[in-house]
């Protein structure tokens, strides 16, 4: 048990690295790709929606924007999508900062509505800007150069790499003063502003960062499917999925969004496989979500850790506080050590 606790991240990584070689059918590579893609995007969404509490329903706008930028750059300029996507996603993040500057004047449900409106604007623009987007029929782009037999595998490893980056960014933000300010805003934004947190700046920055990985995901997806159209690129369900996964796993936690993606993406595939390609999966995910919100409002991860900690200790320690207490203890130990050495 102790071994697992210490090494589970490495073990999980090894399993993920080995997965495509154990399950060799392209279907599994494709499924694995989508699990990792959504894990990355949910992690990204969580930086804004989880830490700060501003729940955007329009993150698909950045997904679609990333997808179109990458596809257009590949067609018109011949840029390799896997190389260009991380850079073009920066542009999308800057767009998000600009839009955030406008939209983040609202809060609560007004913000949610504003993000949906933003998504619809992008969608309608993509449908009508035919010179650039080719309208409703959509854009095609060249297939990857590698052999079709392995066609999914490079995507899988590529997105695995970016999932790790996204998790690192999410972890780093949560541990920084910036992250502390974001979480403080979730508790009481007015108070946070009053004690010196520049809430406007924090919100806009968090919005930009959370758009980045979603845009990157959109870019990679556009290469993966090789054909994109506004209906699928600017699909509100993509954003809704990120939210469902985050809430299922644990809103505002580091691993919650990943856990949610690992449960929800395969589950949805299973439902599609069992019931065929109808909208029934929407009803089932919706029903599941209601159950989770009623019985586990904090998500799987928080509920389980609370349960474990309550069994071991009478009071549940706060996750962030524990890490801060660790820092304090280690710094005071270090200081004592320095004092002792100076005496010698």
């Amino acid at each position, binding site marked *: 048990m102790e071994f697992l606790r210490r090494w589970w991240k490495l073990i999980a990584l090894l399993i993920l690295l080995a997965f495509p070689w154990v399950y060799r059918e392209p279907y599994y590579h494709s499924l694995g790709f989508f699990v990792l893609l959504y894990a990355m995007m949910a992690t990204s969404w969580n930086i804004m929606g989880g830490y700060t509490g501003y729940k955007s329903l329009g993150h698909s706008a950045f997904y679609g924007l990333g997808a179109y930028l990458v596809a257009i750059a590949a067609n018109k300029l011949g840029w390799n999508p896997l190389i260009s996507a991380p850079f073009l996603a920066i542009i999308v993040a800057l767009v998000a900062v600009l839009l955030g500057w406008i939209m983040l004047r609202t809060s609560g449900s007004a913000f949610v509505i504003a993000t949906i409106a933003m998504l619809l604007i992008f969608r309608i623009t993509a449908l009508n800007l035919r010179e650039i987007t080719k309208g409703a029929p959509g854009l095609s782009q060249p297939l990857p150069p590698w052999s079709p037999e392995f066609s999914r595998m490079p995507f899988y490893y590529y997105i695995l790499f970016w999932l790790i980056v996204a998790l690192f960014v999410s972890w780093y933000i949560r541990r920084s*003063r910036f992250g502390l300010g974001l979480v403080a805003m979730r508790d009481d934004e007015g108070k946070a502003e009053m004690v010196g947190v520049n809430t406007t700046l924090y919100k806009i920055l968090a919005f930009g960062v959370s758009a980045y990985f979603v845009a990157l995901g959109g870019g990679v997806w556009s290469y993966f499917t090789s054909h994109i159209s506004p209906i699928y690129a600017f699909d509100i369900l993509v954003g809704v999925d990120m939210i469902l996964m985050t809430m299922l796993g644990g809103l505002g936690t580091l691993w919650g969004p990943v856990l949610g993606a690992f449960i929800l993406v395969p589950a949805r595939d299973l439902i599609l496989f069992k019931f065929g390609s109808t909208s029934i999966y929407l009803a089932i995910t919706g029903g599941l979500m209601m159950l989770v919100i009623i019985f586990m409002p904090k998500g799987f991860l928080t509920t389980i850790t609370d349960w474990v900690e309550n069994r071991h200790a009478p009071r549940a320690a706060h996750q962030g506080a524990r890490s801060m207490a660790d820092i*304090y203890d280690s710094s005071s130990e270090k200081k004592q050590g320095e004092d002792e050495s100076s005496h010698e």
Partner: protein
Amino acid sequence: MNEMLRIACVSRRFGGIQAVRDCNISVQSGSITGLIGPNGSGKTTLFNLITGVYSPDEGEILFEGKTITNLPPSRICHGGLSRTFQITRLFWEMTALENMIVPIRQVGFRSLLGPDMFRNEIDRAMGLLERVGLTHLKDEPARKLSFGQQKLLEFAAILMADPKMVMLDEPAGGVNPTMIRFIMDLIRDLNKEGVTFLVVEHNMGVVMELCDHVIVLDQGTKLAEGSPEMIQTNPAVLDAYLGT
């Protein structure tokens, strides 16, 4: 003595209610100034105007000779002006220690992203927690603290921003006599260390004992000011409190 805060001809209206009307107030640097007045006389509105929660309709607010009118609250806090709330406001899901770490005076991008900044801040926070006797509760979520402890925590936390001036909204409201004594001693000690105070308080015993200057508000404007003794015997003040 220098002037720390100056409120010049400030007015603010909410719909049909003139909450603050042509108000002129000055707080001397290094003083403990009391702000009293009957309910609805505009004390809390004035606090909100000074800290940037509301913008004044007319007039100007100067802090250390510079205008802070229409600045966002975070900038005003960075300038060295902090406040507490009548109804204690904390980050309820955060621990006592985390509540201490959030307030800051100034921040650049480096310290924004650097968790290493935490070390000396945690040392400072622990020092302040010890001063208010909350060290043992550092890992408890703020919502689990008792009412008095929450008040102390809010007070201690704003000191983390290293303010030049602190505005307290009813520091003695609803706390037991021992705690009132403790808070008064704390205010006096901090004042000796150079912090200026503006205190709204309904407990007249506290005001008379603590403050060296008292300002009386009535119907959104200054009614009288002077030493506590002078205020106590001012007929206009007695009139405003007791009604006609």
